[in-house]
């Protein structure tokens, strides 16, 4: 049986690599939760703080450079249990607002994964390959949505197809999906 395919142009750019168990406090430190994601200026601001909770002793290269609002890295590569901890939607939103398009992890914490899908901010791919030990921050990678692969340094790595959440992603998030399913009226009041 053929997997459904997502029609989306590839994302090419440098990767930012972090290891296992990056929790939501490291993705967006709690002190910035005073920012409301649906207020445009505060959405931008959240992006500028993305991954600012990573200890410098472990991650000396900053994800968003001082004084910038956007990151240079459209792809985040990580290990197990990415996004564990709080349910704050500010976490995928901060990454999306900073310019991240795709995350490639070995596994995700449940609510973070769900929030990626519901908001449509970032694509949460999984892979069985421990890419966070293979790739280095700054390596150039290409994400191919049609074939579910990550290509870097002449190697092609398989990503797990998005499977059952694909219809929600394709629709453009939980609201669009619910409208398509007839759960809520098709147009705003």
């Amino acid at each position, binding site marked *: 049986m053929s997997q459904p395919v997502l029609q989306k142009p590839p994302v090419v750019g440098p990767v930012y690599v972090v290891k296992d168990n990056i929790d939501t406090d490291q993705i967006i430190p709690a002190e910035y939760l005073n920012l409301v994601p649906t207020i445009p200026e505060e959405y931008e601001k959240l992006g500028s703080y993305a991954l600012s909770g*990573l200890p410098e002793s472990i991650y000396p290269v900053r994800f968003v450079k001082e004084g910038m609002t956007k990151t240079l890295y459209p792809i985040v590569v990580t290990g197990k*249990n990415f996004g564990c901890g709080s349910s704050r939607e500010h976490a995928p939103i901060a990454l999306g607002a900073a310019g991240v398009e795709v995350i490639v992890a070995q596994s995700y914490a449940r609510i973070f994964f769900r929030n990626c899908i519901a908001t449509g901010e970032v694509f949460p791919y999984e892979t069985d390959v421990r890419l966070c030990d293979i790739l280095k921050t700054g390596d150039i990678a290409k994400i191919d949505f049609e074939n579910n692969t990550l290509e870097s340094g002449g190697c092609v790595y398989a990503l797990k197809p998005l499977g059952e959440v694909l219809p929600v992603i394709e629709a453009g998030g939980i609201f669009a999906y619910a409208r398509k399913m007839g759960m809520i009226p098709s147009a705003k009041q």
Partner: protein
Amino acid sequence: MTLTEKLLARASGRKSVSAGENIWVNVDTLLTHDVCGPGTIGVFKREFGPNAKVWDNTRVVIIPDHYIFTADSKSNRNVDILREFAREQNIIYFYDVIDSVNGQQSWKFDPSKGLLQRQYGNSYAGVCHAALPEKGHCRPGEVLVGTDSHTCMAGAFNMFATGIGNTDAGFVLGTGKILLKVPPTMRFWLEGQMQPGVMAKDVILHIIGEIGFDGATYRAMQYEGPGVASLDMDDRMTIANMAIEAGAKNGVFPFDEITKKYVDEAIRRNGTRSEYTPVELDTEQNFCYDKKIDLDKIEPTVAQHPDPGNRALAKELSHVKLDRAYIGSCTGGKTSDFLAFAKVIGKRKVKIDTYGVPATPMVVKQLQTISWEGISVWELLQSAGVIMTENASCAACLGGPQDTFGRLNKPLTCISTTNRNFPGRMGHKESRVYLASPYTVAASALTGRITDPREFL
């Protein structure tokens, strides 16, 4: 079916559901607070239109509790956004920081009054997960979703309770429905009872250490067995609260007389909706994991920096020197937590900076009323050197704005009754946090190093 499957089957109008199915579930109660409420309201307005009405104004519970006692203007503003929405939507269960009936229209924290003295009005409820049951919003057999990962605490009350993001919550606000995947259930069969010096926090830290802090990802954690009867509701809440610390979707307990007594009293006290139908245990249940936990054998347990699954016994960590001790939060700031803490402290003095933040105003009142040998527990703690605040809130459990009470603004080592210890969780990202029971935190506050509380009991 398991308890979680029964709860979700009922809420989706089906005879049965099984793990892995995606189903639309009717929500009984939606909870939100000051850090995720404004964004949820933003999503609701954006998607349903500026004049849309919430699906049921009696089923939305709004409890500001996170960043309240701070001079940060955006945080103060966020409380005002909640108030405006509650007024516009006629939401009955909005537990405002101020008594706005007196004409006060906005919340502004006054730093000149200090962080210790009460700055809230009569409707303020404190930390949402502790306030929900106290205010009569936890009803067995129901589905509760909230914009906070520790919403799972209400699973103690035989409910399906889980944390969700703003977008899903905005959807629930408009429709009363949520798309959920039925989680497989892990069963923890409890036998025996906790020994002196051991608390419910030790039990859950033991279990998370056992399965790993992503060991229950996407799953339900169900507690059963003869040991459940020895746990009171506070104990069960502490255990259910930390289901998320193992990655679980929810934690759930069976219904019994202990649940009934607590729930009925809270409903009577508050006049909230009183009808409810618990779900009973089936004889046929499918589990993806089944483990016996002998409560008798559990010892004072600590989760070491940097995650809640990094388990050790308190007695093995006496070499760890501490800068600070902290008691508070939904999981560790209940009246019973402070009483246990005070029992260890007794007439002694703490040796390190020790901060106490009650979960709710009712905890403050109880600690100021309960008297031991002629002085209140509150005074006992104060005279031991514990810095107690009347301003019940989440406070430094999750760091918060720089001026938050008890926040780790330097790379300190802290032992805490809270529920998370990821890098930076309580403030400074190079600080180190150890999680432990109120007994262990108290004993450690007395010695300045991690200490098995049985040395003092």
